[in-house]
């Protein structure tokens, strides 16, 4: 078990009279932090505790004007947690009795309780800590379509090859589509994959996956939580149209050196954290794939069989996270962190030494992200806290080609190297102010200096002793971006709660400044304690976009700024919803309907490939609009040995571009009309947990060209003298692939040192169609054309072991 003790002080104080020690509170299966927040509002007390102590503790309490001490007694009875009131602080720690009693606290943390330890470092109690803004249940908050996902939630979802994945965990949410099976793409409410902002500890990442999209770039073993917003967006977030993921990593453990080591089928991970002195902690997480090791025998066999040509192949990815946190004072915490994630692909071949020719070709690809940042969390006053961040983030992609040839004693070599990258310098300040118990104001600003280098190409030709070098480079685009935001989460009455905000942005590039104002409003009207109705409006603005031409995530999918005559992409979204939970809070139900209108979208135009490469990329693009609408239903059971959820989405999404599909409207590729997600987790006992997840959705849209025609060879067929048969153009996304469905199972078995994880991806082996191709069937020297479904992924078992120390 990763034993991390994060000491935390909840920042909200005052509001009502500090002297008022009686509280009135009704909470059913609420996160403990939410209940504490209410108590803080009424009493002015602070709660001081290790987050590991309470993570995911759910509280049910119903009291009216009772003394605080009595309420606390009720809350912590039989939980193994004791409290003491020291001045204005309520200090929580594990009860010594817990060594002998069986803990019955409802937790969905997959880690067992360890022997309770006293909070031996009281000087750490006042540590300031960033916490999720999504602690409260949906029926209480104004936000719509928001979700907090913990590291434990991620690990409880069975996935391909047992590789826990942030993005795949979010695929189970209504309104979120996974795109092509197995890929870590994410399409939210009819949007595109580049319309989701992924932030790692407050810093955006551009490349968020590995292996062509098979795995995400986040090491789930060290994730503390993720705040995910897809319907109503807090004003803090802008710059993407569809959704926002705020991924927060764990801090180091101040209580000792703890960590874990995991070995799985395709990758391994090692994480460790601990104290450095009394005020500093560290955390290091490393994940690396084994794929290159696994392919060694395959390549060796291929090369053994082929005497004329030797193949070269190696693929690997890795993530490295490192973080050092330091407590400067009771009010100030700082940290320095770095993230490096990359993919490496090396391939090629060369003639065997016995061959007549001595040719050799090498292709090397290297791409990824590097992020370095430093941050400061500062409690300015009892009601105001601030988070300052300075960061450097760089996305890089390097492709190289090396061809050597020796013929008739003449040695020739051709080297090509292509690079593209994005470098951002980010400076931001985020503030959190509680002017009263009923109001929470968040505001902030950030400045980003972008530097885009779309491509640089270096060619070097060597013939014997002479060489020539040519460098072609596109211009580097520099852009300056400024953002300001403010929002207020305001409880106007007991029934009415409003979150109102505004995000303003300026984006300066090529001597032009583009601006955007993004108003946000969400309203919650409660009908009684268990039912509420919400409505929301949000506008989002996006200044950068990713040019994607395949369903894979390739290193050549460039991120580019909005330039030329193109305008920033915008989306206006309205939503209404109803939220209900049972008295015990064991079931919650939500229904949300939304309509999203997207403007100034960019996509490749028809026959974009006919445009010459040296022209500006804008020449290949066309601008247009899109709409998405639908209803998301979610039923969730959160208490008991069996928990889980069922969600259903009814959705429509379309696109219309001036120069695509002849200007006609067409369905979006992931216009999945019906989507059903069912997941269940059964905690059989303290050692064994079973998980199951079933997904079914209408098939993705596909451009299917059933007809063809012939053009005579005299028309410029440069490689073949005969006629050429080519596909006849059809409308875009004219065909719907078959209904997609899949069941995944996993089982987690704990022992004293860690846990085993067993998985079955696609348990009933229904291989789903991901594409249609035109192929040929061969039989007895005959060959005839056939349409073929490309089907991926049969049942795939997985196993991994995680050792915790």
């Amino acid at each position, binding site marked *: 078990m990763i034993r991390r003790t994060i000491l935390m002080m909840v920042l909200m104080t005052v509001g009502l009279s500090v002297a008022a020690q009686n509280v009135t509170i009704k909470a059913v299966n609420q996160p403990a932090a939410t209940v504490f927040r209410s108590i803080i509002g009424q009493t002015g007390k602070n709660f001081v505790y290790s987050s590991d102590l309470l993570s995911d503790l759910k509280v049910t309490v119903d009291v009216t004007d009772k003394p605080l001490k009595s309420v606390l007694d009720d809350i912590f009875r039989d939980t193994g947690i004791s409290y003491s009131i020291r001045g204005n602080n309520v200090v929580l720690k594990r009860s010594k009795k817990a060594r002998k009693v069986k803990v019955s606290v409802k937790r969905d943390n997959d880690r067992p309780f360890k022997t309770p330890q006293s909070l031996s470092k009281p000087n750490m109690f006042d540590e300031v800590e960033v916490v999720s803004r999504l602690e409260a249940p949906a029926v209480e908050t104004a936000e719509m379509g928001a979700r907090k996902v913990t590291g434990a939630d991620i690990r409880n979802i069975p996935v391909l090859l047992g590789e826990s994945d942030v993005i795949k965990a979010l695929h189970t949410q209504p309104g979120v589509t996974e795109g092509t099976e197995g890929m870590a793409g994410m399409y939210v409410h009819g949007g595109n994959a580049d319309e989701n902002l992924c932030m790692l500890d407050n810093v955006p990442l551009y490349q968020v996956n590995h292996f062509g999209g098979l795995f995400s770039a986040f090491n789930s073993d060290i994730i503390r939580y993720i705040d995910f917003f897809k319907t109503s967006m807090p004003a803090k977030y802008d710059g993407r149209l569809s959704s926002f993921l705020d991924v927060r990593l764990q801090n180091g453990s101040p209580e000792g050196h703890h960590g874990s080591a995991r070995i799985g089928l395709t990758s391994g991970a090692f994480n460790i954290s601990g104290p450095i002195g009394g005020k500093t902690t560290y955390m290091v997480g490393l994940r690396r794939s084994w794929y290159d090791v696994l392919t060694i025998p395959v390549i060796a066999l291929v090369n053994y069989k082929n005497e004329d040509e030797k193949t070269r192949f190696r693929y690997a990815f890795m993530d490295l996270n490192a973080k050092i946190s330091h407590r400067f004072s009771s009010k100030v915490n700082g940290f320095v962190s770095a993230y490096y994630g990359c993919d490496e692909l090396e391939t090629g071949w060369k003639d065997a030494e016995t061959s007549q020719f001595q040719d050799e070709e090498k292709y090397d690809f290297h791409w990824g992200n590097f992020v370095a940042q430093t941050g400061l969390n500062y409690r300015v006053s009892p009601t105001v806290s601030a988070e300052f961040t300075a960061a450097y983030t760089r996305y890089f992609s390097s492709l190289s080609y090396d061809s050597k040839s020796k013929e008739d004693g003449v040695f020739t070599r051709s080297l*090509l190297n292509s690079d593209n990258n994005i470098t951002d310098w980010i400076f931001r300040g985020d503030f959190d102010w509680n002017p009263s118990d009923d109001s929470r104001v968040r505001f902030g600003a950030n400045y980003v200096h972008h530097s885009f280098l779309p491509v640089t190409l270096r060619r070097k030709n060597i013939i014997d002793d002479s060489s020539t070098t040519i460098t072609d480079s596109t211009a580097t685009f520099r852009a300056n971006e400024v953002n300001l935001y403010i929002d207020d989460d305001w409880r106007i009455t007991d029934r009415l709660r409003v979150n109102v905000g505004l995000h303003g942005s300026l984006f300066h590039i090529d001597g032009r400044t583009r601006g955007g104002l993004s108003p946000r409003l969400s309203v919650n009207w409660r009908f009684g304690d268990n039912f509420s109705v919400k409505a929301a409006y949000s506008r989002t603005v996006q200044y950068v976009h990713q040019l994607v031409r395949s*369903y*894979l995530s390739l290193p050549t999918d460039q991120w580019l700024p909005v330039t030329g005559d193109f305008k920033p992409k915008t989306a206006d979204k309205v939503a209404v919803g109803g939220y209900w939970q049972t008295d015990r809070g064991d079931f919650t139900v939500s229904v949300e309907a939304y309509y999203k209108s997207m403007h100034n979208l960019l996509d490749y135009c028809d026959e974009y490939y*006919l445009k010459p*490469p040296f022209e500006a990329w804008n020449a290949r693009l066309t601008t247009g609009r899109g709409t998405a609408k639908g209803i998301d239903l979610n039923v969730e059971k959160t208490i008991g040995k069996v928990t889980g959820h069922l969600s259903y989405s009814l959705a429509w999404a379309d696109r219309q571009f001036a120069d695509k599909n002849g200007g006609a409207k067409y369905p979006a590729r992931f216009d999945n009309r019906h989507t059903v997600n069912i997941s269940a987790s059964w905690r059989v006992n303290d050692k064994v947990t079973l998980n199951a997840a079933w997904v079914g959705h209408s098939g993705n849209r596909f451009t299917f060209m059933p007809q063809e025609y012939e053009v005579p060879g005299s028309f*410029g067929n440069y490689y073949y003298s005969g006629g050429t048969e080519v596909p006849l153009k059809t409308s875009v996304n004219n065909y719907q692939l078959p209904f997609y469905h899949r069941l995944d199972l996993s089982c987690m078995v704990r022992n004293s040192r860690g846990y085993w994880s067993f998985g079955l991806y696609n348990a009933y082996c229904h*291989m789903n169609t991901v594409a249609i191709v035109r192929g040929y069937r061969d039989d007895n020297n005959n060959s005839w054309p056939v349409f073929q479904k490309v*089907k991926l*992924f049969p049942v795939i078992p997985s196993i991994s072991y995680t050792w915790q120390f």
Partner: protein
Amino acid sequence: MAILRKILIYILPFMMTGCYEDFTPDIDVTPVLCINSMITAGEPVEVDVSRTWLYTDVQSEADHSVKDATVSVYANGELVDGDYLPREGDCIRIVADSPTYGHAEGEVTVPHAVSVRISRWIPDHITYTPETYAPEEVDGYEMIGFLSFDLSVELEITDDPADENYFRLSFDSFFPKQIVYDDGILAENTSWCVFSVWSYDYQDEPIFKEHIGILESVMGADSYGFTFFTDRQFAGSTYPLHLRYQNCSYYVRSPKWNPELLDCGLNLTLQTVSQSCYNWANYLWQREDGLYADLGDIGMSDPMHGYSNVSTGAGIIAARAITTCTINFADFLATELHKATSDS
């Protein structure tokens, strides 16, 4: 693209363990008319009308012609008959109607030929082999030997600033005809010669690679065989094409010195082609050597449909005007043969 296939060979089976399954799609297919026509300035218009067919329809594969179609050709808006000879600058519109397959039409403007001249040509790597046959066969021959050389040519194109031009370069060699019997054997003691160009180095002229993206370059794609280009990089000005012909070979065998056997050369033909013709060729390159066509072939990218400028989306109506320049090697060959024989 070979490298991509190489990569996928190792990645896909391992991680995806996928498969292909034949199927018959439940989709309505209506054949439409296809028009193909390559119009050459100064030559009668020929139109080929056919129809589209279902990709899997192997039964009707042999004949896709349309018997009941009527074809009309319009030049600059006027209906013309089959004897009409299109001129440069004409807008030719072709209309086809069929009771079975409906209506199709498309148009093209015949491009103007541009001015070209050979500004210089330089042979190098000249080698002479006097005896290519057994010694007893060469006695008494005044002309005999094998001359090979490489050839650098600078072909100057003067672009018309009024037009957006697209070009295709081609070449062919010529030499005097031989006396050949019906059985294909040369007459005994016949004077004969052969001139040929073994290969053309497409890498020597960068403009033939202007359609290749950086990614494709890095992935090893080349422009072999592709001699289409545009005036985008030299619009309205003069551009010298740098051409490199390798292993030009001249064989000669004659008992008497015969100057007519030296009449060998190279025709360089520059076609000014319509945009539709260029787009079609570019599409073919993308399909054969482009990265994303390969991805489309395996279902990982949108498939690439055929380029067309016909209303039904089937067929190409293209046009061209032709200019030819000739390099005659007679003097060069005479000099080299004299020099070689005197040296020996």
